[in-house]
Structure formats: structure tokens, C-alpha cells
């Protein structure tokens, strides 16, 4: 059956079908991820009342159940929940992207330096990493925000501080396994400097696991940042942050289910999307698996 597809000109739908069959995890994750991305990018076009994501309140429309004019209902300040959930995708995705960019920028160079040079450099950096890893990330981030003023910016910084050690450890492992290989010796024997060896040879060999980890962590960061907002240590009203929305709606849960449910479902969707993408990518990029299939 599938051979007929393969022999004819592979149409884009056939490619999509093959993709779903070969790696359903990745396909499903990417589809969900794409939905999230469209939500974030298309928020101004898709939402019924874009200004509700901002400071507008409609005190005459509070806690309306889902209807044609408000598909997800309205919250305790009469704001359209669909609008706020869509804009929430923007907030969550940008927090996650920023946190992981910062974490990689700090963690990867440190980890690579530790793994490549070894010895005292390694000890110094990795003991520091151990100190950070001794705290659960949420706890560390909460403690940091408690010192700073609660806001999206401080939550982002705090999460980056809590997250970089993981990248340092990952990069260190990759770098030290490459540094022990002959290719580094042969690079040196050709007159390459350490900087050049690190950037041209060690780093490219460390990229794959880091990419996988980033895609897995996107979900984790979204979850933790939502948790921080839920606890009042992240985004502050009127920012349409999912965790904050859940927190605000929680007292109405028994009587007005929609206020909590839709933002909660969005968090679930986002966390699931990136976990699926991460698992799927790991499978695709696994060299052992590639060796079998090629």
C-alpha cells in the first residue's frame, strides 16, 4: 500500500502520512507546537477582543459562561478568556525561549570549558554547578524572585539561573567525551589553537543532545513559569499569563469552571507539545537508531 505512494511522485500529503507513521511522537508534538506558535503569532487576528489582554475591564460582563460571543467565557473582570489564552501563548513561549537562551549562553560555554580543559577548571566549574543543582529549580527560582521584585523579568532571570547548570553538565559530558577522542589530538597536531578546536570541533559534536534538551525543557520552563505566576511570583495582572489566570480563577472553580479550565488546558497542551517534540527528536537524532535504519 505504501509502496504505491513511494513510487509515484511523493506528494506533500504522502510525506506527511509517512512522517506520522515513522515518528508519531514528533509529528504530534510538532503539530501541537505549531498550533501554539500560531496562537502566539496570530493572537491579534484570532482573538475576539484584543484589548482584553491589556488593562481593559468590563464589569458588566463578569464571569459569563462560554457563548458565541465569548467562546471560552469571561473572567472575574469581564475579560474575554479566549483572547487572554491566545495572548498567553505569547507570554509563555517568549519566557521559555528567553530562559533557555540565557541558560544555554551561560551553561554551554562553561560546560564545554570544563569538559575540554578538565583538571582544575573542570573542578571549579562543576562544583559550582553542583551547588546550583542541589536545589530543585522551582525552589531556587522562587527564592531568587523573593529577593527581586515579582515580575515577568525577574521570573525569567530566576529561571535562567536555575536552569543553566543542567546545560553546563550536559555540555561538559559531551565536551569531555570529544576531548578524549583522537580527533582533538589530531587537530592539535595540525596546529589548531584550543579556541578553534572548541568552536569548530567540540561544539558541533555537542549540539544534538543540547537541541533535544532544549526542546524538552521548553515544556518544563512553561510549566514552572506558570507555577511561579500561580504563586504570585511571576507575571502580575493584567499580563495574560496562564498560571496567573488559573490562580485568579481558582476561587470560582466550583461555580464558574471555565475560568480555570481553559488556561489550564493551554498549559497542559504546551507542556505536552514540547515533551513530545523532545522525545521525538531524541529518537530521530539517536545515532544508534540511525545506524540501524541506514
Amino acid at each position: 500500500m505504501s509502496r504505491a505512494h513511494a513510487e509515484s511522485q511523493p506528494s506533500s500529503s504522502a510525506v506527511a502520512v509517512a512522517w506520522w507513521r515513522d515518528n508519531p511522537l514528533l509529528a504530534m508534538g510538532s503539530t501541537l507546537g505549531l498550533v501554539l506558535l500560531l496562537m502566539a503569532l496570530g493572537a491579534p487576528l484570532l482573538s475576539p477582543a484584543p484589548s482584553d489582554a491589556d488593562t481593559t475591564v468590563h464589569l458588566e460582563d463578569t464571569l459569563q459562561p462560554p457563548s458565541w460571543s465569548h467562546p471560552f467565557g469571561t473572567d472575574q473582570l469581564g475579560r474575554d478568556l479566549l483572547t487572554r489564552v491566545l495572548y498567553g501563548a505569547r507570554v509563555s513561549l517568549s519566557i521559555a525561549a528567553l530562559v533557555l537562551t540565557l541558560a544555554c549562553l551561560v551553561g554551554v560555554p562553561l560546560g564545554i570549558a570544563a569538559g575540554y580543559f578538565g583538571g582544575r577548571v573542570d573542578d571549579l566549574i562543576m562544583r559550582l554547578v553542583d551547588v546550583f543543582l542541589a536545589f530543585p529549580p522551582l525552589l531556587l527560582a522562587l527564592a531568587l524572585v523573593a529577593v527581586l521584585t515579582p515580575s515577568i523579568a525577574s521570573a525569567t532571570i530566576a529561571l535562567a539561573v536555575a536552569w543553566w547548570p543542567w546545560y553546563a553538565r550536559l555540555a561538559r559530558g559531551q565536551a569531555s567525551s570529544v576531548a578524549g577522542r583522537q580527533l582533538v589530538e589530531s587537530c592539535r597536531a595540525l596546529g589548531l589553537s584550543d579556541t578553534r578546536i572548541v568552536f569548530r570541533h567540540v561544539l558541533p559534536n555537542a549540539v544534538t543532545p543540547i537541541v533535544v534538551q532544549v526542546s524538552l525543557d521548553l515544556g518544563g520552563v512553561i510549566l514552572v513559569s506558570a507555577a511561579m505566576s500561580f504563586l504570585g511570583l511571576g507575571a502580575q495582572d493584567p499580563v495574560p499569563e496562564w498560571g496567573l489566570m488559573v490562580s485568579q480563577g481558582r476561587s470560582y472553580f466550583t461555580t464558574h469552571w471555565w475560568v480555570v479550565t481553559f488556561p489550564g488546558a493551554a498549559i497542559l497542551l504546551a507542556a505536552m507539545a514540547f515533551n513530545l517534540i523532545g522525545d521525538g527528536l531524541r529518537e530521530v537524532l539517536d545515532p544508534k537508531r540511525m545506524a540501524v535504519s541506514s
Partner: protein
Amino acid sequence: MSAAASPGSAGMDARLQIRDLVIRFGDHRVVELETLDLFEGEILGLAGESGAGKSLTAYAVLGLATKLGAQVSGSILLEGEQLVGRSEAWLRGIRGRRIAMVFQNPVAAFNPVFRVGDVVRRALRLHGLSRAASHRRAAEAMRGVLLDPELLHRYPHQLSGGQAQRVAIALALALGTRLLVADEPTSSLDVTVQAEILQLLRQLRDERSVSVLFISHDLSVLAELCDRVAVMRGGKLVEVGPTGWTLSDPREPYTRELLDAVPTLTVEEGAL
């Protein structure tokens, strides 16, 4: 520093002269070589059991022993120029261009994420060639080691061990190296491929007067290839001499021991 002319190198010029070389890790003296010369267009074998200091000596010649945390003293002269105690930047300019190294596992010596041609061309450009010239020189070097230049488009894992080792040698030649340090270059290859690599090294010696410091624990390979053989034990030189003498009529008991340790294949009559 001290550029003492070496006695005994009558007629031929020494490409590499090692004098009073001591390599230490802390208080532990791992290598102590008093005198060892490598002449132009000569293949010098360095034999000895594992841990005899053969590879460390090779690393010291490239100025890489200090990178491993060793202290190096004494003198290593490359065409009369002192290598010991030079700055890392100066040594980087020498490595590849004037001394090249070939490793035991040729496939592992290449970065798996790049095509070998990229590695070769980058190395050439690092040592000052233009983009166009690096393409030309890489292809020439491949033909010089009897390989199809098309192989430059492959990734290391798509090459056989013998091909990868040839590419490594081609790279060294493309850089204009006349001193090749080969650390067990054939140990990971099968016997026919091994013979081809040895033939290639002989050809380079004869046609381009390349000098080779050939490190191996395989006495049969050394006997086949080398002009002279030096035997090391516990970091010290036990015996140096023309291959025929050293390996067929060793003066030192240790060389005899090494020879006796070579497994020989005898087929009893009627066994098959």
C-alpha cells in the same frame, strides 16, 4: 640555545636531533633520551612495549607533551631549530606545516560531523592558502597518495581505515611536511591495507625525502619498513642501529626478549 653539531651524522643532514631529552610528570621521569637522530629521507622505527615512552616522545616532538601535563627539558632540534621551550603560538605554526602526525585510528582522527575534504581544506587555509589554492592542493595531495579526490566529499565513517589513513597522510603532505610522526599508524588496519600504507610511506621517503618517525610495537612491520630501529624500554633507549642488525642480531638482551615475544605461526606437517 645549544645548537651542538652532532657527531656521527657523516654525509647526511639530520632533520630531527634529540639531545638529553627528559620528560617528567612531577618527580617521575618517564622518558630519558640521550641521543636520537632522524636523518633526511629516513624511516626510523621506534620499538618497545606499551608504556616504554614511545608515544610520549612523539608528542614531545610535536610540542604537545606539555599539553598532557608533562615537563619537558633537554633539546629537540628540527632542522637545527630548537623546539623545546618555544611558545605555544610558535609551535602551532610548526605543527602540520613542518611536523605532521598520523594516528593509530585514522577514522577517529577526523571529526565525524564534517566531510574529510572540509577538514583538509580548512587545515590548508589555516596555514595560509587561499580558498582556491586549498581546493587544488587537496585534490593534488589525494592523487599523491593514490586516492580519488572524490573521496574528499565523504564523511569519515564512509571511508575505510586504509582510505582514512591515506587522507591523513595526504593532508600532512599537502601542508608541505617533511617530517612525519606516525604513532602506530597501521595497528588498526588489516594486513593487506597495512602493506599498502607501508608502501606509501616508502614511496614518500624515496620520492620526496620525507623523514618518518615510525612508532610501533609490531616488530615485523618495523623490520619490513624501517632504515634504522631504536628500541626503548622504561623511557630509555636500549639500542639503536640499522634494522638488519638490530632486529636480526640484537646486542641487547631486551631486544632479544622482544623478538622472542613475537608469536610465530608454525604449521605442523600433516596437520591440515
